[in-house]
């Protein structure tokens, strides 16, 4: 079942439709409800290697629907600590629960100050309304 449209207030957002849940020196990253809806049912997640360095504003993986491929853009820089294997095995988890079980990677932040450059929920909703 596809999730209802939502954008949790406790998350930080990147205008390329990615979210970050920051917890001290770590963050969990994923794609927003809008991104999964635009793609349709996800059928593949090409994850980064665990231990890989990812860079803010650059692609760190790919998500695919039956018809389309999309880069996943990192909202923050850091080192990949963990890839969500559930999403690798069952990519539709992202459609069902984009902010919960459908998270993509957990990273150790290399520059926690980058978080100041991210959007809050109101700013992200304004991007969607553009």
């Amino acid at each position, binding site marked *: 079942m596809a999730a209802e449209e939502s954008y949790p207030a406790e998350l930080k957002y990147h205008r390329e439709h990615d979210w970050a849940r920051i917890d001290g020196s770590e963050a969990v990253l994923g794609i927003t409800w809008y991104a999964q809806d635009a793609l*349709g049912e996800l*059928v*593949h997640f*090409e994850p980064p290697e665990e231990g890989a360095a990812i860079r803010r504003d650059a692609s760190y993986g*790919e998500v*695919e629907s*039956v*018809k389309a*491929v999309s880069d996943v853009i990192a909202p923050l820089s850091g080192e990949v600590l963990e890839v969500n294997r559930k999403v690798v095995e069952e990519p539709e988890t992202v459609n069902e629960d984009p902010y919960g079980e459908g998270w993509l990677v957990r990273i150790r932040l290399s520059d926690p100050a980058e978080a100041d450059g991210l959007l809050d929920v109101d700013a992200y909703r304004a991007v969607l309304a553009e």
Partner: protein
Amino acid sequence: MQTTLLRTPLHDRHVALGAKLVPFVGWEMPVQYGGVIAEHRAVRADAGVFDVSHMGELEVEGPRARELLQQTLANDLDKIGVGQAQYTLLTNEQGGILDDLIVYALEPTRYLLIVNASNADSDYAWLKERELRGSEVSNRSSEYGLLAVQGPRAIERLGLPQASAFTWAMGEIDGVEVMVNRTGYTGEDGCELMTMAEDVVALWDAVLARGVVPCGLAARDTLRLEACFPLHGNDITPETDAISAGLGWVCALDKEFTGADRLRAVKEQGPRRRLVAFVMEEKAIPRQGMSVVEGGDVTSGSLSPMLDVGIGLAYVDSALAQPDTPITIDVRGRERRARVVRKPIYRREETA
């Protein structure tokens, strides 16, 4: 530049059903309603309906209509009589494929050609230019609506009599007069219903009321790919020939038609490349335009909703064309293993 997309008579119905509409060869068409995978599986398990009113309908009429088509189409029209249909190709002088189409024998002197939407105007122009005295070509595309109703229960749900594949008959569905064509593009049983454009909304409503699932072009593409039916513009083009594409069975090389001599030469020498079906052996989805590392190009690729693996069609060097040959697909810089398989990629198990 602002271009206006054409709409089928069912546009408002698609919007009301919540379809995702996309531009497709100049038309605004439903790519999906509920979801591609559910729609795909509905066609494999029961019945689905596709609005394919964008497709072109050409008519060729007159005492020399058959002669004109024998000269311009690759298959042998003498194999079919009135009430029958045939898959065939419109070829150029180089043996390239201008279009693939189905020709229906309406009367001994009248034929209907249902052609790809993207090629309707150019096919019409090509045939018009070659008209003989006594054969008249007309483009009737805007006059008709076309619904493909496909799936193992399609015929039963429509209340139609059983009939052989590649035949047609006039019929009626809940008061709408239709031409029932026993043809399709999914690898399943079913039909394509042609009706007057003004009646297609009533026909659509009647088909849905019979429990048939509305399906978009995305599912149509994954279904035809599992069945290994080529898509013109991807797998077959004016630059590819029928022999390399595995469509030699459609070419009556014992008759004369445009490009026949070139096709005989390709057949005699053996094609350099062949269009093969393949299945990924690793998690990855092949896409049109990717390279086959050992030599070749992917022309269609997707996830197979039935097999849940990446599948595709590719032109590969003939040495690699045998089933079970391992090949490698370059998936955006990552090498992923695949295997050539026999066509079709998916065939429904026959149930006793």
